């Protein structure tokens, strides 16, 4: 467990001075940030900006999960990696870059694919989870694990010129399954490898994920519980919409849940837990 502090060091006061003077945050909020831990799942287009702004703001512990290694085609949007790290573990690369910016944060890189066995033991060590993944199966896995472990999930996604953001399982609001009880047919799912994405679009959504995590961790309420932000980069429009509440019939967060432990999400979705191949071979 993260060591809890009740005051800030002189170095912290100096480093965070520009945010400490904000009345909404203040020393109390900064101490809360220092005592908080965030797990980012996915060290890609969303995970890079979220990680660097959470590290800069002085979150206590930052876990970064990614099974993948850096590739040249990642660098147009995954801004914490570098050319000389092609082939290196992405989670390690993110931790290394963030450490140089703020060595006061504890970084825990996990070079693994989140699955039904390891998800709960990892997630339960963190206060807030960021969904910065790139595929449907991991999104359901992460949702169910967060509901079971009682963690708020700050979820971002991006494709082409569009981005979406919601905070799930927050203050008795809905979870991902409340909104999407059935997975989409695999042939309707487009990932960034197939569909493409402008790098700064996940940049903006990842920043918004960091912002909401900072607000929650420091005691300011999130604006996106039971709400979704829709961003269209071509039109330059942001739309905020009201979502349904928690569904009593939800199989995982409802009044009589039928999913009480993690299942096989690749089978449930008929799709692999990566953005490398769209559909599983068994289909």
């Amino acid at each position, binding site marked *: 467990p993260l060591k809890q502090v009740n005051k800030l060091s002189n170095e912290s006061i100096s480093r965070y001075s520009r945010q400490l003077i904000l009345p909404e945050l203040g020393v109390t909020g900064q101490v809360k940030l220092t005592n908080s831990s965030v797990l980012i799942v996915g060290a890609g287009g969303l995970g890079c900006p979220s990680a660097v702004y959470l590290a800069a703001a002085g979150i206590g512990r930052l876990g970064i999960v990614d099974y993948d290694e850096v590739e040249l085609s990642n660098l147009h949007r995954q801004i914490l990696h570098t050319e000389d790290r092609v082939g290196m573990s992405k989670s390690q690369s993110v931790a290394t870059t963030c450490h140089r910016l703020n060595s006061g944060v504890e970084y825990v890189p996990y070079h693994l694919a989140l699955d039904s066995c390891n998800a709960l033991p990892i997630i339960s060590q963190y206060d807030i989870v960021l969904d910065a993944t790139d595929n449907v199966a991991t999104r359901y896995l992460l949702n169910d694990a967060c509901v079971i472990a009682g963690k708020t999930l700050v979820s971002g*996604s991006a494709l082409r010129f*569009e*981005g979406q953001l919601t905070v799930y399982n927050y203050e008795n609001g809905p979870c991902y399954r409340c909104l999407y009880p059935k997975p989409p047919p695999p042939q*309707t799912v*487009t*990932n960034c490898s197939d569909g493409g994405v402008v790098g700064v679009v996940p940049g903006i959504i990842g920043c918004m994920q960091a912002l909401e995590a900072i607000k929650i961790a420091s005691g300011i309420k999130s604006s996106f519980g039971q709400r979704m932000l829709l961003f*269209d980069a071509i039109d330059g429009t942001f739309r905020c*919409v*009201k979502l349904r509440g928690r569904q009593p019939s939800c199989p995982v967060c409802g009044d009589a849940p039928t999913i009480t432990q993690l299942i096989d999400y690749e089978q449930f979705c008929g799709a692999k837990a990566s953005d490398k191949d769209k559909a599983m071979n068994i289909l």
Partner: protein
Amino acid sequence: MEISLEFSGGAELLFDNNKKHDVILPDQKEKWNIKNLLVWMKDNMLRERPELFLQGETVRPGILVLVNDADWELVGELEYEIQSKDRIVFISTLHGG
């Protein structure tokens, strides 16, 4: 009855790659609800591969429907009675990152 239909997240690719359609629903005996709007859209707007948009009598899993910026679940889903000037948005959920 004049309404506005909007598409995002890729759903627009099924509708001439046009994010906004102002349409006029013809007068009919029964009231317009989303259920018969979907039938009308299938007959009048969806050119091909309706299975990428519809499944049975409703939208396929992974499409969120909004009525005037609120989740359709809050207003009755398929049974919601459409009002003139309504803005109905179909959003394909994104999964990339």
